[in-house]
């Protein structure tokens, strides 16, 4: 630590930092544009200028940029010196030469860092009397709006997009005062993290186009702390609502997870909440009339009747429903009658993963741990598409070993451009072994595409090379042996090696990753093992039950039950049409609780409208095993409520457990006491009784407008805000206005800091954890002393045959996930059905690029155009996983493909 004097006051500062970051950490306000805590210093904007003095007698001093000045003991600076204050003001005046005066109609207004900095520097009168510079804007697709005239050329967008996120289609063009940031032609950004530009941009060049479709001023949004539902990473978000419509998602800083960024699926997938196919009222299936809406009371009576007359209930849980609702169903139907509503293969993999974490010696890392890893092996997972933010974390991890080079010549880590110049394109060890090409291949030291079994074989072989007591793998080629050796050495040389696998392929891949991690653990102390999962609460559901969906058949067959309660799930995504039909046909009564209508609700006798993440509160467990609370953002129209609330009516009156649950805390405390592994869940956030200075925490901002008029079309009197019994948050603008405990931070704002940059006022130090610690609690810690037996199920080498192909699922950030694809923007960018194979494989089947093919065993009207892809090993065929069009079309493991024959149709170029 160093003593630094700022305006003659001594501060203890960290020498590893630059002066700007250190000063912000001390709560001092120095304005800035181009610096960003995740991107480091660039020295471009010159706004963070301060005066540096040689010693206490120096009155002259010189202007230096605080972002480019290292913290050094005994140095003296002034932020408020008149000369430097005037200099900073002039920087704003320079920017205002060309910045348009469109604040009143700018989407960024009220949340604009440029506005804040203008006010902070005191610039208010502009002497410029000439014409402004103008640019042409680009159409950047459905997610991001482009307004280049507002650009202040801080270079943050390009530095984030290219240097941090690995994108290659956003650049600066031109020179002098005509620098243009954009793509080389119109079109959507190709990088999965492009949405962060709307927060990275200090003004309104890149703004959220989905918000623009239903724009409202940022201060008029009602917000609550939330957790993303579009994959298992559990990024923290702030959804915003106005007039009953969810308007946007913004990042919520969590130092252990997403920090400043979100992926585009997470940011833009929210619009399913506003979808017209939402279930908003209970619906009863009446044969002749199809579905009829019934009242909430009628629905409760129906539930009670069904429960009374039923021979028995079974419950099918959901990996996208919160723990509380899953637990309520578990409690209602009983442990032996509760089944995981997930695909059989995925279920097996999940159970294996839980077992590996519960009984193994290697821990699962947070995203922050991943960012700190210095050697990474990925087995079978296309992270960019299955767990995008994990891929972004890996992109940072590969810089860790390389930045030893820049450190060795004395370049501090924050001096971003210099670090890049010094390390150039050198990357730390990353090995990517997947079924087909992935985006991380381009930064990998080695990447290999192989059949799932062969990926597992390599994983097993790496384990054996690390520890000879791990089972050996026979029949390896020389190339494979060499690769195993290279990977093994890199893992052994690293300080914080990390192995990543996941649910994309099969159990063997997952087991081989565990073997490798366990073998490595015998040699090293700081080993980590991450598994990506598919949905926001996959981990939580897998902890709750070990009964598969398939086994529900037996319970129904045995006649112990005749009523199936399906929780927030479209089962036709979980198996083939045939299998799910067979299962549901066995039930006399089907109750579906969900927020969407879909093929499964079509089969229901009773549909109950459940809340989405924005309309209810609950707990998800992410792939790390971290339980996180999300909170209701707004009160929806209709009879929507949390699923657990609906389920209460089905409990026999004499039991009186569920019926006593009135608040979320009641469910959580029951869950925590029933399951030891869920005990920490009650501690992840304050209970609903929590009050800050005696008050609830308002969901609405200081400046929330129209409170007294917002309901005037219905009722002239201002209604009393609805009470929220589930949380210490209030549907109001009144209440505690200070910084709440971290799990309850629902928006980032501080006096003078209206943009997302205000997050620095909420962190214990800039870029560090939120004050009071980042929210969320890990439910599983590894047992360091455990010595589980190695897995042994080593597959045989894959041999391509002429009889058919091995089908492998390929994942798409847009399309593979059920909820986000309902959002119009994402829907527009989503993958469409295809089948991809190596040209060699296609040749043996007499197929060509673009041929429409059919797959034996899949009954569907969908046409699969053939895509040739040299990255896929011969003998394999890739298909897009999870697309809505392919629902119910369960792909066989192995099968034949042939050209589709269209009857009575002559194909013409005009088709």
């Amino acid at each position: 630590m160093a003593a630094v004097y700022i305006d003659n006051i001594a501060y203890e500062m960290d020498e590893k930092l630059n002066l700007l970051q250190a000063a912000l950490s001390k709560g001092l306000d120095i304005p800035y544009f181009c610096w960003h805590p995740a991107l480091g210093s660039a020295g471009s904007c010159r706004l963070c200028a301060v005066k540096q003095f040689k010693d206490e007698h120096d009155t002259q001093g010189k202007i230096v940029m605080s972002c480019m000045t290292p913290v050094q003991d005994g140095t003296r600076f002034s932020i408020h010196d008149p000369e430097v204050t005037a200099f900073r003001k002039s920087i704003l005046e320079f920017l205002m030469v060309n910045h348009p005066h469109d604040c009143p109609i700018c989407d960024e207004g009220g949340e604009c860092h440029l506005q804040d900095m203008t006010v902070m520097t005191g610039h208010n009168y502009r002497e410029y009397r000439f014409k402004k510079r103008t640019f042409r804007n680009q159409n950047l697709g459905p997610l991001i709006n482009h307004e280049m005239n507002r650009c202040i050329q801080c270079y943050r967008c390009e530095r984030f997009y290219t240097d941090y996120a690995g994108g290659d289609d956003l650049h600066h063009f031109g020179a002098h005062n005509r620098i243009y940031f954009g793509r080389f032609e119109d079109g959507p950004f190709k990088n999965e993290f492009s949405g962060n530009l709307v927060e990275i941009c200090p003004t309104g060049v890149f703004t959220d186009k989905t918000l623009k479709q239903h724009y409202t001023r940022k201060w008029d949004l009602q917000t609550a702390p939330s957790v993303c539902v579009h994959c298992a990473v559990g990024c923290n978000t702030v959804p915003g609502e106005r007039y009953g419509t969810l308007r946007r998602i913004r990042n919520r800083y969590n130092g252990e997870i997403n920090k400043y960024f979100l992926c585009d699926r997470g940011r833009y997938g929210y619009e399913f909440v506003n979808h017209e196919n939402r279930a908003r009222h209970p619906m009863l299936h009446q044969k002749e009339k199809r579905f009829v809406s019934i009242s909430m009371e009628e629905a409760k009576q129906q539930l009670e009747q069904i429960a009374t007359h039923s021979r028995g209930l079974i419950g099918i849980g959901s990996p996208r429903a919160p723990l509380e609702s899953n637990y309520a169903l578990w409690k209602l139907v009983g442990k032996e009658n509760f089944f995981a509503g997930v695909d059989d293969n995925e279920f097996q993999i999940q159970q294996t993963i839980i077992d590996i974490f519960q009984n193994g010696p290697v821990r699962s890392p947070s995203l922050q741990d991943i960012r700190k890893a210095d050697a990474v092996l990925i087995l079978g997972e296309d992270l960019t598409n299955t767990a995008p933010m994990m891929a972004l974390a890996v992109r940072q991890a590969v810089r860790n070993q390389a930045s030893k080079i820049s450190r060795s010549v004395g370049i501090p880590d924050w001096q971003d451009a210099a670090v890049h110049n010094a390390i150039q394109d050198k990357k730390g060890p990353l090995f990517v072994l997947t079924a087909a090409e992935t985006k991380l291949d381009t930064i990998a030291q080695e990447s290999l595409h192989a059949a799932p079994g062969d990926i597992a074989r390599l994983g097993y072989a790496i384990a054996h090379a690390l520890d000879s007591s791990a089972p050996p793998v026979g029949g390896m080629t020389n190339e494979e042996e060499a690769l195993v050796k290279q990977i093994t050495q890199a893992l052994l040389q690293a300080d914080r090696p990390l192995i990543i696998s996941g649910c994309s392929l099969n159990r063997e891949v997952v087991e081989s990753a565990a073997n490798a991690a366990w073998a490595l653990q015998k040699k090293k102390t700081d080993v980590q093992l991450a598994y990506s999962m598919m949905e926001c609460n996959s981990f939580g559901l897998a902890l709750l039950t070990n009964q598969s969906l398939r086994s529900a058949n037996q319970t129904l067959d045995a006649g112990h039950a005749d009523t199936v309660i399906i929780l927030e799930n479209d089962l036709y995504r979980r198996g083939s049409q045939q299998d799910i039909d067979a299962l549901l046909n066995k039930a006399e009564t089907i109750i579906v609780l969900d927020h969407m209508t879909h093929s499964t609700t079509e089969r229901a006798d009773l549909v109950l409208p459940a809340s989405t993440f924005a309309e209810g509160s609950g707990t998800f467990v992410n792939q790390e095993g971290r339980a996180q609370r999300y909170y209701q953002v707004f009160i929806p129209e209709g009879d929507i409520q949390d699923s657990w609330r609906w389920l209460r009516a089905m409990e026999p009156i004499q039991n009186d457990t569920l019926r006593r649950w009135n608040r979320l805390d009641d469910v959580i405390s029951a869950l925590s006491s029933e399951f030891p592994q869920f005990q920490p869940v009650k501690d992840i956030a304050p209970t609903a009784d929590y009050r800050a200075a005696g008050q609830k925490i308002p969901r609405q901002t200081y400046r929330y407008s129209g409170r007294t008029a917002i309901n005037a079309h219905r009722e002239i009197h201002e209604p009393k805000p609805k009470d929220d019994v589930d949380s210490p948050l209030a549907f109001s603008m009144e209440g505690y206005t200070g910084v709440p405990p971290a799990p309850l931070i629902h928006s980032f704002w501080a006096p003078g800091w209206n943009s997302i940059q205000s997050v620095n006022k909420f962190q214990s130090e800039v870029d560090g954890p939120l004050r009071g610690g980042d929210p969320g609690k890990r439910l599983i810690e590894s047992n360091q002393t455990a010595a589980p037996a190695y897995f042994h199920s080593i597959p045989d080498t894959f041999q391509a045959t002429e009889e058919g192909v091995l089908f492998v699922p390929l994942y798409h950030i847009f399309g593979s996930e059920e909820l986000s694809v309902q959002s119009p923007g994402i829907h527009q960018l989503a993958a469409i059905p295809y089948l991809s194979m190596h040209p060699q494989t296609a040749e043996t089947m007499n197929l060509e690029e673009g041929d429409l093919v059919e797959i034996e065993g899949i009954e569907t009207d969908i046409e699969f155009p053939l895509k040739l892809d040299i990255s896929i090993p011969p003998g394999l065929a890739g298909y897009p996983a999870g697309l809505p069009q392919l629902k119910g079309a369960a792909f066989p493991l192995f099968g034949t493909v042939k050209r589709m024959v269209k009857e009575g149709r002559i194909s013409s170029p005009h088709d």
Partner: protein
Amino acid sequence: MERPLTQNIRQGEAPLNLEQYERAGGYQALRKALLTMTPRGVQEEVKKANLLGRGGAGVATAFKWRFVPLGDDAPYPKYFIVNGDEMEPGTFKDRLLMEGDPHQLIESAILCSYAIEANIAYIFLRWAYRKSARLIGAAIQEAYQAGYLGENILGSNYSLELHLHSSAGRYICGEETGLLNALEGKPSMPRAKPPFPQTSGLFGQPTIVNNVETVCNVPHIINNGSDWFKSLSKTGDGGTKIYGVSGNVNNPGAWELPMGTTLRELIEEHAGGMRDGYTFRGALPGGASTGFLLEKHLDLPMDFITMNKAGTRLGTGTVIVLDDQTSVVGMMKNLMHFFAQESCGWCIPCREGLPWIEKVVHAIASGKGKKTDIQWLERQCKLLGPGNTFCALAPGAIAPLQSAIQYFREDFESLIAE
């Protein structure tokens, strides 16, 4: 008077080919250095000679070299770059050397590379110097064939690759670190220092960038010694200097003269005095990015220290003469246009400030100036001063303007009054 740098240059004649250059004593310095001197020894000799960089900044060449790690543990590869991106307005001295004696440049480049044990060298050439490119390209080929370049040069065990790179053509490419980015194929924007190129330069490796004229001195220092070199100069800064004069003089051109020659001698003797009907009013001593000298400065020796004391810089030593028939404000308008256009666009004060300054100067020149404009310009000149911008482009750009307002304020005022 000795003119080592230009001794082989005959006006109107083709430059010496390899054989002729060798016959004139060429590649002897290289032979001497490679076979009898250590790299550190070469550095020592250059240090003793007090060779100051001729690109404009006047940094001691040996001082710059000193920070390059030497020996077996040094990073590999290391780069030596000759900066031939001569784009300073009014400056044409390096062109003289490159077109006039390309082998001297190549020998110099090899010698300097040897002094820092560089493995790869580049000549970074201004895009418009097509003739230089042709001549240097041919000379490099000859040098490779003769074994002065490539593996194991002259049996010394020292190897060097030399490449010629023609710039994509922006002023900022001549800035040391902007040049590195340009050479890496990136937009030419300067880099922050530290880290200095000596530790992290081209492709992140130790790198030295020296001006053409600077390096061309090195073979002569090696051949004749540092004492001889210092004796060439009239002042403490060693050696000769290629001075040039442009403007309304009778004989504009460039001449190799002792360092410290006066402006009067330059204009009156070598440039043949002012053209008839034109009177001397002032001069920019070293390209566009230096401040004015006036009549009272005519007898000052033109070296780095004296020029700094006179409130300007020696810069490139190629003088632009201002006469009484030429509009100062018009000259400033042209210069500001150049600098505003050549700003790379990286930092705000330069990117936004220079075009605004250009517009105001243009307004004054076209009779649309406001009374407050002069004060405003003076304020901008302070804002764009050294340290406030990312690199030296903006401080250089405002140097002539600042001194023009200081010395010729009435010219600005009269246009506004009209």
